[in-house]
């Protein structure tokens, strides 16, 4: 029924009749809610279920969830819709799209929506690690929803076979190299059959790279999103370390490693240690035919990881009534009970300390403590690379990283080129 209505609406809009229909206030506030799906599982069904629950508890508000594809699709769709004056009311978008959304005047700050002390308190109820990508210029633009970090998964069987303690993951860069050397196996002809460690580098290598830079004690951009530091010595050092895993130590596959097949490489025992998102936990738990461990990433000068994933945004085109209703929905979605259930269903990290204190979360981690690793790592987390004209700056870095990993440029050269390109793009935002 709702589908049919959407269809009719769209035709009406196409015919230019929308103005007439929209002018008559409906009995209920209807909110469109765009969300991407980035992990496996019946996400659409879960979201539809949540929307229905919310509607039951809040008569007078109707939620229209729209599954809008990948994150990339969703931001593209949202920006188009904003330009066409047809923005959604609420959308889940990558936390890194914050500056883009602000530049397009697309979203409203939560500070301007909250009024009561309780609501202000709610704004401060999330892990600070997740808020780094949600705030800029002293305002909060996104509420953490489906958030993740990078963690390390290791194959306990292969550890045992290599004479390592299967319960202990490498804690430092030096140990990572040492473990990697023991874990890498070669056949009689000298061809590698198992790599010690694997860090994927297709698609969004910058995210994985941020683990190394953070651990090396440097951030890649300023808080205003107008400057990048790709050519700083610590960044080049971090890249040198990643490149050396393969080139010098021979414990990491050469070239650009596909993100999508990395879990499979792990299942096939082609890689003993992999770096990937916490969002992969459920997948790995279901498919690994061996005992595996989840650990914080090994430390360089310090521990560190970027956060990742999506925030809830409220759009500026809405009326006051719609904004109030949207705020209500966002609060409802991010409430501890809901956040806990969402984390359990999807494998994302529950976004507030209170969510971890709920009964169902406690019961869940009692059987399966792996998710707590991501939570505990949050104290070392930094914001995911995010600047103005984010996609473009990110591509400059990605290209540089791939050039260094494939050996077409030295790490220093690659990062200097990336920095030059980023400078060119960001100049106009300063």
């Amino acid at each position: 029924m709702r589908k049919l209505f959407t269809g009719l609406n769209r035709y009406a809009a196409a015919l230019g009749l929308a103005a007439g229909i929209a002018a008559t206030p409906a009995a209920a506030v209807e909110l469109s809610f765009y969300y991407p799906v980035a992990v496996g599982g019946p996400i659409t069904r879960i979201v539809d279920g949540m929307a229905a629950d919310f509607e039951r508890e809040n008569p007078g508000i109707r939620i229209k969830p729209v599954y809008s594809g990948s994150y990339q699709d969703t931001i593209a769709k949202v920006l188009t819709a904003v330009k066409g004056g047809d923005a959604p009311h609420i959308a889940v978008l990558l936390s890194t799209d914050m500056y883009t959304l602000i530049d397009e005047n697309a979203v409203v700050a939560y500070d301007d929506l909250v009024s009561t002390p309780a609501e202000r308190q709610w704004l401060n109820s999330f892990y600070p690690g997740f808020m780094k990508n949600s705030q800029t210029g002293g305002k909060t633009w996104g509420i953490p929803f489906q958030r993740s970090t990078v963690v390390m998964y290791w194959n306990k069987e292969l550890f045992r076979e290599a004479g390592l303690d299967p319960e202990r993951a490498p804690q430092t860069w030096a140990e990572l190299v040492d473990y990697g050397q023991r874990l890498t196996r070669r056949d009689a002809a000298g061809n590698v059959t198992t790599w010690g460690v694997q860090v994927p580098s297709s698609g969004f290598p910058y995210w994985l790279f941020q683990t190394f830079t953070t651990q090396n004690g440097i951030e890649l951009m300023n808080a205003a999103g107008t400057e990048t530091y790709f050519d700083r010595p610590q960044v080049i050092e971090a890249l040198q370390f990643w490149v050396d895993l393969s080139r010098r130590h021979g414990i990491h596959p050469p070239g650009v490693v596909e993100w999508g097949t990395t879990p499979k490489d792990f299942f096939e025992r082609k890689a003993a240690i992999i770096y990937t998102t916490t969002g992969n936990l459920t997948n790995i738990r279901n498919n690994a035919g061996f005992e595996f461990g989840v650990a914080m990433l090994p430390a360089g000068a310090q521990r560190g990881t970027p956060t990742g994933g999506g925030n809830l945004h409220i759009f500026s085109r809405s009326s006051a009534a719609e904004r109030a209703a949207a705020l209500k929905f966002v609060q409802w979605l991010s409430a501890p009970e809901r956040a806990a259930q969402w984390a359990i269903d999807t494998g994302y990290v529950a976004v507030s300390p209170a969510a971890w204190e709920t009964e169902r979360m406690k019961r869940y981690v009692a059987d399966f403590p792996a998710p707590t690793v991501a939570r505990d790592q949050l104290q070392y987390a930094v914001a995911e690379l995010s600047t103005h004209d984010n996609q473009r700056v990110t591509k400059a870095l990605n290209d540089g990283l791939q050039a260094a990993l494939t050996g077409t440029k030295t790490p220093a050269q690659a990062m200097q080129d990336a920095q030059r390109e980023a400078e060119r793009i960001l100049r106009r935002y300063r």
Partner: protein
Amino acid sequence: MTVSSASPARRHAAALHGWLLLLPAAVMLAAFTHYPALATFWHSLHTTARGNRAAEYIGFEHYQDMLADPIFHLALKNNLLYALGTIVPSVALAIVMALWVNGRIAGRGALRLAYFTPTMLPMIAVANIWLFFYTPDYGLLDQLRGLAGLPARNWLGSPDSALWAVMTVAVWKEAGFFMIFYLAALQQVSPELREAATLEGASRWQYFWQVLFPLLMPTTLFVLINATINAFRLVDHLFVMTRGGPDNASTLLLYYIYEIGFRFWDQGYAAALTMVLLALLAVVALVKFLWLERRIHYQ
């Protein structure tokens, strides 16, 4: 051949009817082919509207940017190589396939089907399958290499093999399609030609190059033009297999246009890039029209 001998009134009626019949198609063609081609040029002279900044006229600045854009240079170079590297093998394979399935060969129908099947599959779907083929170590290709004792290779993750890997997929996808046209042409060739050539003692090699190949020339031209257009038009597999990487080593012009236009939302620059693509296609068009002209005279 038309109603030239009829009265002026009838001629007017015919002209009116002709235009009316043509009108719907003409409107759609103008709206989605001619107008956008011209508008591309116009928009390539403007910046992209963003937030509350409107688009402004900047002359040929985008074209200057293009000259300084290393990714554009790479995309262009890749695309020319891609065109050459997909057209030649797929046409050669198409001829060989057509010769086989036109001759007396066991299981001819099934074979024809086997060659043609890739044409019917969506590129985006087969790209997934090929991605698994190319996976290092346990992908099918490396498993086969492993049997020969060869080391694993990161096909899609190395700049020196990524473009070739995506080219292979295109050849696989297209050869069977082109085969069909050759098959059609071969079926028109009279078997007596073959007998005559044999009687004169020509080897099969000579027969092919001196008799058959010239006869197939019109088909070859047709196929070549189609293959060239496809080389600039079909980039679906890049989305799944390499996303143009590593470090743009496998990026093609249209894919780069997509990235600029729909990821970075810089539609002004994307328009300038599209102009290059249109210019390339115009060259192909010129060749084709010259050839088409000749063909139409024959009919």
